[in-house]
């Protein structure tokens, strides 16, 4: 008997002014020990289907199904107590956003122990001991301490692991992982995926992996379900689907995975670069409480960084989470005041200009924010949001502004009637496109795009990237492209700047960087890119910060022409290729 049996699932949501169908005719099964992936575009009903299985949908949801069984229990007929027993024990879930998934006022230890005790009769102390073991299992080194930590004291990656530990704590027969890695950077993502796979094997659990990232699927599962628009498009063994997709949507999905983009043509202009950062740095004052004391400190978010964005080029800024990419991008826009350094736009230093003098530059430089959800005013309709730049700069009549906004809506691949909608009514990918439309409507010459495609599924991503390319060609747009997604970087950008802990550790033309990475961090980063082919699944090793430091490359004076120094410095080892290294005499 299969562990999960879903037959003819249909979920709709009651809303003001009618019902919305989220999921229709969904049927699939999962047997014990099996791992199944659900892929599909954003908003296709992946999360809703799984939540329906655990009856975790809000009260406005109406769930119908011919069969909806979990571990032999008819979920639709189960009462509250049965459900409580079923949840956690038969199936546990890892949620998309670990930051909001923990109760902020209880310690991690309490929350894990509580889960254990909800399902088994054990003492508090034993439960805590078990929790510690679980934390160790998910490779949290200082597990004993972490037990006493509150959620906000952990980083996103650690929380995600604690979340997995919590899910494992009830020894579920089925683990549902809902996009467990979207919020994480590639290196952590790879670690988490590997971890999930390992514990799955160890505990002999079945796994449902929800994602829109085909690479993740290729890496982790045996069987795949492809969803689109609330329905299942295709289902089959992962190798079969990857090698011989039947459905059109699956085909485009896979096609986009293998597409290649051409690097920008023509030699860069010799005139001043579109944007140049000279020695910019940013330090934050931090205040940490320890007990009742406040410890004041300086945190170097960005150490002296030089970045050149030549005209009509796309430069990528990559690096681990928290390495200062966003901060650099914001400083370039003068949205965060740099602590030091100059910002040159077309050769003019704008780092000292007052707000009024900045306005003409603001028209030429735009930014797409990393978090598209908070970057859109929740009280404004999309048409208003996109037209806002025109409104601020007083371009055209209100009618023309709206009209132009609606055109841009189409250009980024959204229907015109979305103009009436609000940000919260969109999926993540749709929101990101709105943010891009807003940034581009003024037809700027410089664009700082901070993870503009992180929430997009591959098809839409391809569309957006095409759009960016096209604009680059049409408008002579220069883009500083901040991203975690190395495959996109590889296919889109002309050169890459790698940041690590607030410093630039390597910089090179794209092809050269991917071919000959020098810095150990760059290598680790490239190594973490998920495979695009299920047959390429492999085990990875991960470097710790100390190991990276220890492996800093060494060059001689002759190789680099720089003065020898025991401290690492950026040295040029080939035209356009700089790397942080220790120069030995």
């Amino acid at each position, binding site marked *: 008997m299969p562990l999960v049996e879903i037959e003819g699932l249909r979920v709709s949501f009651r809303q003001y002014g009618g019902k919305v169908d989220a999921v229709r005719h969904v049927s699939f099964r999962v047997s014990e020990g099996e791992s199944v992936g659900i892929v599909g575009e954003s908003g296709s009903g992946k999360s809703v289907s799984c*939540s329906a299985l*655990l009856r*975790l949908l809000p009260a406005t949801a109406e769930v119908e199904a011919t069969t909806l069984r979990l571990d032999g229990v008819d979920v639709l007929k189960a009462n*509250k*107590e049965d*459900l*409580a*027993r*079923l*949840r*956690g*024990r038969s199936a*546990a*879930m890892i*949620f998309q*956003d670990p930051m*909001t*998934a*923990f*109760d*902020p*006022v*209880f*310690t991690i230890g309490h929350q894990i122990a*509580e*889960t254990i005790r*909800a*399902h088994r009769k054990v003492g508090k102390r034993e439960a805590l001991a078990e929790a510690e073991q679980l934390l160790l299992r998910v490779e949290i080194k200082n597990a004993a301490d972490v037990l006493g*930590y*509150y959620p*906000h*004291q952990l980083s996103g990656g650690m929380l995600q692991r604690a979340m997995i530990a*919590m899910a494992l704590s*009830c020894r579920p027969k089925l683990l549902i992982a809902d996009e467990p890695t979207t919020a994480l950077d590639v290196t952590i993502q790879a670690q988490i995926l590997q971890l999930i796979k390992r514990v799955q094997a160890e505990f002999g659990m079945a796994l449902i992996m929800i994602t829109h990232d085909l690479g993740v699927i290729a890496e982790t599962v045996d069987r795949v379900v492809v969803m689109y628009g609330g329905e299942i498009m295709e289902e089959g063994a992962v190798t079969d689907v990857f090698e011989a997709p039947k459905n059109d949507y699956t085909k485009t999905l896979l096609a986009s995975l293998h597409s290649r983009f051409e690097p920008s043509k023509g030699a860069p202009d010799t005139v001043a670069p579109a944007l140049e950062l000279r020695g910019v740095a940013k330090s934050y004052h931090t*205040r*940490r*409480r*320890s*007990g*009742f*004391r*406040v410890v004041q400190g300086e945190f170097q978010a960005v150490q002296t960084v030089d970045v050149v964005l030549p005209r009509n080029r796309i430069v990528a800024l990559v690096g681990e989470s928290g390495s200062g990419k966003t901060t650099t991008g914001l400083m370039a826009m003068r949205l965060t005041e740099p602590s030091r350094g100059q910002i040159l736009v077309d050769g003019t230093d704008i780092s000292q200009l007052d707000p009024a003098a900045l306005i003409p530059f603001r028209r030429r430089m735009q930014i797409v924010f990393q978090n598209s959800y908070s970057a859109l005013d929740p009280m404004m309709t999309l048409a208003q949001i996109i037209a806002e730049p025109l409104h601020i700069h007083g371009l055209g009549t209100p009618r023309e502004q709206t009209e132009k906004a609606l055109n841009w809506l189409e250009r980024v691949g959204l229907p015109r009637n979305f103009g009436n909608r609000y940000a919260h009514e969109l999926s993540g990918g749709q929101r990101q496109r709105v943010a891009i439309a807003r940034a581009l409507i003024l037809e700027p010459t410089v664009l700082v795009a901070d993870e503009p495609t992180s929430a997009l599924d591959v098809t839409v991503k391809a569309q957006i990237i095409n759009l960016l390319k096209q604009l680059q060609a049409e408008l002579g747009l220069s883009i500083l492209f901040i991203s975690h997604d190395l495959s996109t970087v590889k296919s889109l950008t002309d050169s890459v700047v790698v940041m690590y802990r607030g410093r630039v550790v390597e910089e090179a033309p794209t092809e050269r960087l991917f071919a000959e990475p020098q810095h150990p961090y760059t290598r680790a980063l490239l190594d973490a890119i998920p495979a695009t082919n299920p047959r390429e699944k492999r085990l990875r090793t991960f470097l710790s910060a100390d190991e990276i430091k220890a492996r800093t490359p060494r060059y001689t004076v002759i190789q680099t022409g720089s003065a020898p120094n025991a401290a690492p410095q950026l040295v040029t080892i080939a035209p356009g290729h700089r790397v942080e290294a220790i120069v030995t005499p």
Partner: protein
Amino acid sequence: MTAHIIRRILSVAFTFIVVSIIIFLMMHSVPGGPFDANDMPVSEAVRAKMMAQWGLDQPLHVQYFNYMWGVLHLDFGVPFQSPGETVVELISRAWVPSLILGGSGVLIGAPLGILLGMAAALNRNTWIDYLASTLATLGLTIPVFVTSMLLILIFAVWLNWLPASGWPQPNRWILPIACYAAIPLATYARYTRSAVLDTLNRPFVTVLRAKGLSERRIVFQHVMRNSAIPLVTVFLPMFIGTATGSIFVEAMFRVPGLGAYFVSSIEVRDYTLQMALMLLITFMYCLAYLLSDIAYALLNPRIRVGGAE
């Protein structure tokens, strides 16, 4: 945290001084003095003598500084209304009944209000919710003196279950405490309802459900604790707030508390007592806000154990 507390204390001290100046000026700009209530005028000579006796003949700023200098030494002067004792003695005597009744009112009303609010939130948009919300609104709308009168009429006059009013015997406390409880009950019910609804909408509640926790545990442990933290900040100020409510309740129930002095000190221009009472309430409020701040910080792990602010 210490620095934070010190900064708060300084700002509170600043506020306190500003308030004291404002009150002092307002108090003295009200026409009529403490010796003007008599049916027939006292002669100018007599008046002057009495003004001099209380130091009221000095310029205002001198009076202010004299008074505040005394306050620094915890000397709040002698109430004109009761020259046999000091203001401090008077207040500490009269405050006891007010504190007993007001305190019990809040202590009883607040938990009941929380329960009512939870019941409303958990049964959102059912008759329980509507009933609870209506009760809460009524509690806030019907003036205390009407409630007092109603309770007296029902329980003392018609049903004859309880004494109508009066002080020392504890069975006379029941009705006034019920009146005092109405406002915290209503306020807490409102606050709790919205706090619980907010909490229920947070993603971690879904996670808790997914873990297989019983609904009861989710509500009474997680939701309650999370909702309680913001509620802490209103508790103490509300406690102090009952002090002014005592004007009505104590008048209706013949309680020899502080309430009557609020009104009488203003009416008979009892400057020392008036000033002391105002300063007392101001001070209590300052303290209450300060303590709530600290309590909030202590209860909220985000602040207590550091990390991002």
